[in-house]
């Protein structure tokens, strides 16, 4: 396959970036999207040019590092698939592919396609946990959790913290990410004592980081590689209202 790649190049957070065109031939349909970029980078290195910087690590769809906007769609055209799991057989010979970083004010570009997602960590640090210090736990089977709740909690906990939901949202809202964590913990009995303080603290931090508000367009759900449901956002809103009205 032969491709025309249009890639966002930006030296660092201080400089302005621009789209640069690269022609790439000999792309095998069996390559993953990132392997295709590896091939491009090898070529650039040979020419003495700087390779394209992008975040990645596990290449198995679980670490949440990879984060590319492919033809305007976070993680590209295949549903429920991270960039690293996307394969070139989903593209056609001669196709033009535009590759950009996540665009959102709380995710500033560091270089090329690499962004800073530290805002997600700071939201978790405010309350995305159960305060259970090491050594204080009772026997695991003394806390019963219905299979239904455990499964629902697990579905929400599957979030990989990639930020595609934010990149997809016209408001740059982090609601899906935050709501997923709140549901994961809030659906479990262990998560109840801090349920109200948690939602207030995490939502406050989300606002402080400059994420936009949710206007129910559901673009986040469509972009999420892990199928996190917008129902979690409704649950977050209920919890938030309850905590604000009745105190903690």
């Amino acid at each position, binding site marked *: 396959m032969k491709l025309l790649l249009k890639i966002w190049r930006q*030296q660092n957070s201080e400089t302005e970036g621009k789209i640069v065109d690269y022609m790439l031939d000999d792309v*095998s*349909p*069996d*390559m993953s999207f*990132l*392997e295709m970029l*590896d091939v491009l980078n*090898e070529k650039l*290195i*040979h020419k*003495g040019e700087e*390779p394209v*910087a992008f*975040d990645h*690590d*596990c*290449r*198995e*769809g*679980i*670490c*949440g*590092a990879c984060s590319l906007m492919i033809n305007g769609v976070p993680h590209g055209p*295949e549903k429920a*698939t991270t960039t690293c*799991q996307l*394969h070139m*057989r989903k593209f056609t010979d001669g196709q033009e592919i535009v590759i950009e970083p996540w665009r959102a004010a709380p995710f500033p570009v560091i*270089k090329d396609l690499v962004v800073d*997602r*530290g805002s997600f*960590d700071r939201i978790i*640090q*405010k309350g*995305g*946990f*159960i305060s*259970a*210090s*090491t*050594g204080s*736990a009772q*026997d695991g*089977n003394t*806390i*019963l*959790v*219905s*299979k239904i709740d*455990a*499964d629902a*909690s*697990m579905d929400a*906990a*599957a979030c*990989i*913290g990639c930020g595609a939901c934010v990149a997809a949202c016209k408001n740059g809202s982090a609601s899906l990410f935050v709501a997923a964590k709140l549901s*994961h913990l809030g659906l*479990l009995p262990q998560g109840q004592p801090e349920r109200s303080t948690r939602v207030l603290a995490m939502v406050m931090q989300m606002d402080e980081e400059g994420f936009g508000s949710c206007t129910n367009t559901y673009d986040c759900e469509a972009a999420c590689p892990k199928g996190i449901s917008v129902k979690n956002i409704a649950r977050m809103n209920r919890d938030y209202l309850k905590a604000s009205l009745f105190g903690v």
Partner: protein
Amino acid sequence: MITLDSKIPSGPITEKWDKHRAEMKLVNPANKRKYTVIVVGTGLAGSAAASSLAELGYNVECFTFHDSPRRAHSIAAQGGINAAKNYQNDGDSIWRLFYDTVKGGDFRAREANVYRLAQVSVNIIDQCVAQGVPFAREYGGYLANRSFGGAQVSRTFYAKGQTGQQLLLGAYSALSRQIGAGTVNMHNRKEMLDLVLVDGHARGIVTRDLVSGKIESFAADAVILATGGYANVFYLSTNAKACNVTSIYRAHKKGAGFANPCYTQIHPTCIPVSGDHQSKLTLMSESLRNDGRIWVPKNKGDKRPADQIPEKDRDYYLERKYPSFGNLSPRDIASRAAKEACDDGRGVGPGGYGVYLDFEDSIKRLSEATIAERYGNLFEMYERITGENPYKSPMRIYPAPHYTMGGLWVDYNLMSTIPGLHVLGEANFSDHGANRLGASALMQGLADGYFVIPYTIGHYLASDKSTKVTTEHPEFKKAMEEATAQTQRLLAINGKRSTNSFHRELGLLMWDKCGMARTEKSLKEALDRIPELREEFWNNVKVTGKGEELNQSLEHAGRVADFLEFAELMCHDALEREESCGGHFREEYQTEDGEALRNDDKFCHAAVWEYNGANKKPIRYKEELTFDNVHLATRSYK
């Protein structure tokens, strides 16, 4: 000269840890905040250690080269975590988990450590449940278990196919709570480049900020390395792309003994290589072997598609050779058998390095819906990667490097041969001997981090009489200058080959000569070739960009430079261990029917290597292993 004092407490094995805990020194609560501990790595081991130490009141400086602690490679573990809870009432016990782990490790692990691991395994599950890890549950609300990796009891706890992710997110949440509370100072995107010793004690590290390129140093009262395994020495492995040997190898060069570097685990069920562009290998969960049958054509060069090969022309070689364990034979055995079949010219798929994992019979017996319910997500993943539908034609699998049992030598307190330097998780050598059982790495990482180091580091700090140091000390300046010089040297070469091409070449060499099967000849060839390759690297590598910015080529080059030295250490170790055990298979040492042949008279020890200067052969020491509780016996899975 290094001294290996394992510091195993006296007394019966069942009482050693309790006795030790009662005897270890404590740091007074008010004094804890006067101590600073550096933790490098935020995988299960590092996150668990950093959060637990901060909860106790220590100041923690924690480092990762990832953009967030949550991205550590532990996130990728699928199958589950073992614990001797015996919730299933099926005869499990601490003793049995201990026994299975010692036997599974082919009698090359330290009994006392393994027993403690089995003991604290039960606390891990409790801790994780309390943190909100959404383990699978039965309808009654109790924790569910499954059997895993050939164990005869059901002791594996799991969270769908994402157990590592959920355990890591649990540890990450505990760590985040401490970061929020200001007790852990978290440094993301900072890579440790060197260890700093003052008066022979580990007192700090040198790092490179991966965004600004700044070289910095940090001082502390003790250093913990929890930086994971080195399977990427093979280039292609199931590990994440950034996994590397740098932190432990640099510590090794500063004097830490490296134990059993040649013990590597090759996982039998990975998706085969599809072409030269391949950048990593994907693991297909071992659980597939519960319902899939492994086979190759009986005849060499049989190129018919799978569905046109009749039963009589198929060789279900695991079922044939190991009738009692069959498709569930342990990892090392299953991997070697696949290699044998392919080397014999009977492999399938492009390139001939693959074997079939066939679900046809199970689909007939149980229905496609049942198989989809059990393995749906794995089948999807397989199809996404290969473009083939495993419901219609059998999967193709091949073994791939997966886990490294070797690592820095540590004593019972998890301290290396350098006082103050502690090593946790996959980075140490402690518990798995020559072969790790499935679902035991997660257990070990969390045991080390949550339940061992919080006690033993207190003992070290309370006993250590050295005075405080700061980064003004000349040793810090010296280490920073060295790190800066290495970075500049890499950037100045401006040769013709990319770092990746060297990494690939080294990987292939190691896979051929020091992989699933090794011989004296192949290892000597590797030992000849590695220094040449290293020489070429330092003269001909091309690293673009500058040092004072985000520069992924530079990061990779630094890691590959260390792999190019470390690979030699691995080959020395494999060459001198003239026996076959667990993941280390020397073709010269096998039984008549091709099984691993241990030599307990000569090699019932851990080999510990001391660095002896650039381009010099390292020095080999031994920690003799004694088996007082599980008697030395030949593993048999027939």
